[in-house]
């Protein structure tokens, strides 16, 4: 152990660029991830007089004002996790195992909730099922239907997060070696028997993984519970209300800790326990294409199911689009541009701020993500595992926790950054890196390490190799990191709601205020404009990364056997 540490230190000293990059990344991670978390923790167990004490924390934790939101959040997370995973599994199974029409359409539809602005599904929910709802009021004539509460949250979150389950499970199902299922078929098993005895058991790690990922998302969701939870209080929202409404910073940070514990646990389980249990066999050899079922008894029910999901999504998004153009929803459905005029006048500055800050943080988050992936996969240095863990941690740390942590850490000397654009950019950067890191890591693992070694031995430094060899090969991963960072920065609510200032107000927070004052159609117009910006930006990023050069395909190569 000591031997290896000594060698990797020697390695660092010999390569000053690498040493600099490693130190740079560690500084960023400590300052913007570790320090805020540490501040929340230390603040929660310090009394007003500045003494260390668990008493205050204990008293607070025993009161139902704190326990109820925890119970609610857990219940919501479990329910949404199960429902989203079931829908995601059926969706993924239909798209990978069954020969049916409109697959491209279904795939496209399933990505919409991932890249859409917050509040949109909740807004639809209110438009469709609220007091003046299209379905509740107009269709069935209910006068006082209550859209606010857990039932609506479950619907909205399930639609929001089933794509995560679908994508996770598609990965699992697509990568299961078809030969295993073919072998079962060859041994005489029926399709349903193969599903029960082979496919389903082999996808259990994927199922659990997707459940945990959805659970984390549901727990940390701020925007939906903030507007349609009614009396059903959740931790993310209660923490915010406790701090901004009751000025109780300590109570808020305790709630943040209560929120952090289960999400962190779920993250650790997902990343370190399940990843070791995966049955996915990556042989590197081309596997024969999968025989897809054409049995009508299987195809049409699955098709109907996918269509139902797709139509639901279209209904929800279409409703908001229509809502943006009507005078007063439920009362006066005549056409108007008024709401867009509002967005372009009063709403213009927050919108511009959102775009500026998202554009500023996107390249930083994208490059940092690729850099960390490169360092973690390709380089040896002390603290490598820690770097990997901490940089992925932000995925599991709820935005609310980040926001509160940032207030505590950067609201005084030596870091007086609260309310500044810089802090918002850093919040975006460090929260939005993980997807870039994940896709970068999985790309790099597939690329033969000797391609970089070839560059090194031909005389290139680490920096030149990274810029001219690794980065171009990481183009796809880089792009998805950029797109994700931009979308997340544009649509962020929970972390930034603590960090905005009159100078740096943001579009999502403006939408939230419109909800608070029941200006739903203005909110709808705002959301439509944001969707337009996101779509244009994704197209732009695609073009931009296209200029980075031809990515080619990795030349054939055998196993890199170590003699």
């Amino acid at each position, binding site marked *: *152990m000591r*031997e*290896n540490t000594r*060698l990797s230190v*020697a*390695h660092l000293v*010999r*390569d000053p660029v690498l040493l600099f990059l490693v130190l740079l990344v560690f500084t960023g991670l400590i300052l913007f991830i570790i320090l805020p978390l540490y501040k929340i923790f230390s603040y929660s167990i310090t009394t007003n007089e500045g003494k260390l004490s668990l008493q205050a924390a204990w008293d607070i934790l025993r009161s139902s004002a704190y326990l109820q939101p925890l119970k609610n959040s857990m219940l919501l997370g479990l329910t949404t996790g199960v429902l989203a995973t079931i829908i995601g599994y059926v969706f993924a199974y239909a798209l990978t195992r069954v020969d049916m029409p409109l697959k491209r359409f279904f795939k496209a539809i399933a990505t919409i909730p991932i890249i859409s602005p917050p509040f949109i599904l909740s807004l639809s929910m209110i438009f469709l099922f609220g007091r003046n709802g299209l379905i509740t009021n107009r269709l069935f004539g209910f006068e006082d239907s209550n859209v606010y509460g857990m039932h609506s949250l479950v619907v909205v979150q399930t639609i929001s997060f089933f794509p995560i389950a679908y994508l996770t499970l598609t990965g699992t199902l697509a990568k299961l070696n078809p030969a295993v299922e073919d072998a079962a078929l060859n041994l005489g098993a029926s399709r349903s028997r193969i599903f029960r005895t082979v496919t389903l058991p082999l996808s259990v790690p994927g199922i659990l993984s997707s459940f945990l990922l959805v659970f984390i998302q549901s727990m940390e969701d701020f925007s939906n519970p903030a507007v349609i939870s009614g009396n059903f209080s959740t931790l993310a929202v209660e923490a915010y209300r406790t701090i901004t409404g009751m000025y109780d910073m300590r109570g808020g940070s305790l709630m943040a800790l209560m929120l952090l514990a289960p999400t962190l646990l779920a993250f650790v389980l997902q990343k370190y326990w399940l990843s070791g249990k995966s049955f996915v066999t990556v042989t590197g050899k081309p596997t024969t294409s999968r025989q897809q079922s054409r049995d009508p008894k299987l195809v049409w029910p699955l098709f109907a199911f996918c269509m139902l999901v797709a139509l639901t999504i279209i209904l929800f998004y279409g409703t908001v689009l229509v809502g943006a153009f009507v005078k007063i929803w439920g009362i006066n459905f005549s056409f108007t541009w008024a709401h867009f005029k509002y967005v372009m006048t009063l709403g213009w500055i927050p919108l511009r701020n959102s775009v500026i800050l998202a554009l500023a943080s996107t390249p930083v988050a994208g490059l940092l993500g690729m850099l960390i992936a490169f360092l973690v996969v390709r380089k040896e240095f002390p603290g490598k595992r820690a770097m990997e863990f901490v940089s992925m941690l932000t995925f599991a740390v709820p935005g609310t926790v980040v926001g509160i942590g940032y207030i505590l850490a950067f609201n005084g000397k030596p870091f007086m950054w609260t309310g500044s654009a810089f802090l918002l950019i850093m919040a975006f950067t460090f929260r939005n890196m993980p997807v870039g890191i994940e896709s970068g890591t999985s790309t790099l693992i597939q690329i*033969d390490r*000797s*391609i970089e*070694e*070839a*560059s*090194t*031995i*031909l*005389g*290139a*430094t680490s920096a*030149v190799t990274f810029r*001219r*060899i690794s980065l*171009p*090969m990481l*183009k796809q991963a880089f792009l998805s990191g950029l797109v994700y960072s931009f979308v997340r920065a544009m649509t962020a609510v929970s972390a930034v709601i603590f960090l905005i200032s009159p100078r740096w107000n943001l579009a999502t927070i403006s939408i939230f205020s419109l909800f608070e004052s029941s200006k739903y159609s203005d909110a709808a117009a705002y959301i439509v404009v944001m969707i337009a910006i996101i779509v244009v930006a994704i197209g732009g990023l695609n073009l931009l990364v296209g200029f980075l*050069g*031809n*990515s*080619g*395909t*990795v*030349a*054939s*190569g*055998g196993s*890199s*056997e*170590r*003699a």
Partner: protein
Amino acid sequence: MSERDFSARSSNVSLLHLTKRFRSLDGSGEVTAVNDVNLEIRAGELVTILGPSGCGKTTTLRMIAGFEYPTSGSILIGGQDVAMVPPNKRGLSMVFQSYALFPHLTIYENVAYGLRVQKLPAAEIGERTQRALDLMQLTSMAKRYPSQVSGGQQQRIALARAIVIEPSVLLFDEPLSNLDAKLREYMRDELRKLQRRLGITSLYVTHDQSEAMAISDRVVIMKEGWIRQVGTPREIYAFPQSKFVADFMGKANFVRVRVLGIEGESARVEIEGAQFTVPRAGKAGPVAGPALLVVRPEALRPVPLGSEQERAALKGRIDRFTYFGNIARYEVSTENAPLLIESYNPEASFIFEEGTEVGVIIDFESARLLPAEEQE
């Protein structure tokens, strides 16, 4: 085309007590991958390290390249210790097992890469790249990408990319193992011709003994981190100094014998009661007592019982007969040891059926002696 330019910087390489230990996979202990290796590679020479997988050959190569750091010992390139020299400053080139071509660059840009990294003047880059492409007959495909050319062409690109920077030493990490058998033989000969013409000091790593024999000035046999024998291909095949080397370099039979006496190079031995002379016994065998006689399969001849039986050292039964066209291979069980016999040009001689009892004549001219019990 002046090929001499490529050879200008050829250096010798010395490995002194080179040792590399890794933490074992379960983390409990240490594995010594390379153990006190001493080796001198002369300027312009092609040395092959041959050994089974896990013998430490690739680790040795990678330490010379600078991708692994020695636990102890030193590496001298052109007389200079390179311990503190990072891999990109060692002035070496390497041809990788997977070729490691840059998939996003054209073949021209792949070859020019090393020169561009050195920031040479554009005219020089153009001229030298073109010369390397011409030399490897790649000019017509310079604008294509690596994925658009065949495996043999990829191999040549990797070679062109490696020699264009005029390395002081060229390293080869099993570069032919991804080619099919015919192409492998062709490329092997091309590679050797090129290396001789350019005179680049080369270290070649492989587990294929026929490859090692075909291209090397000298061969180093490694096992479990240790060097077992160093010599020209002929020295190693004809005078193996251990059972492992005899077995790994070609095929070998080990006949149990008793040494009665040594006189100069020749030894008197007893096999199953009869006495024979081994004219060139080698230096590895014992002076007297039990020993192993190393006999290559081609140095054994089966004969029918009766006629030539009195000349046969051993008697046995043919268990298995395989016909390869150019060779008839017999697996023969005897009281002494199982024997593998290869008869060349089988159609010109008698072919024995399975189950036949035969006598086995040993050609003692090429037989060698080894100690009976060897410490492995």
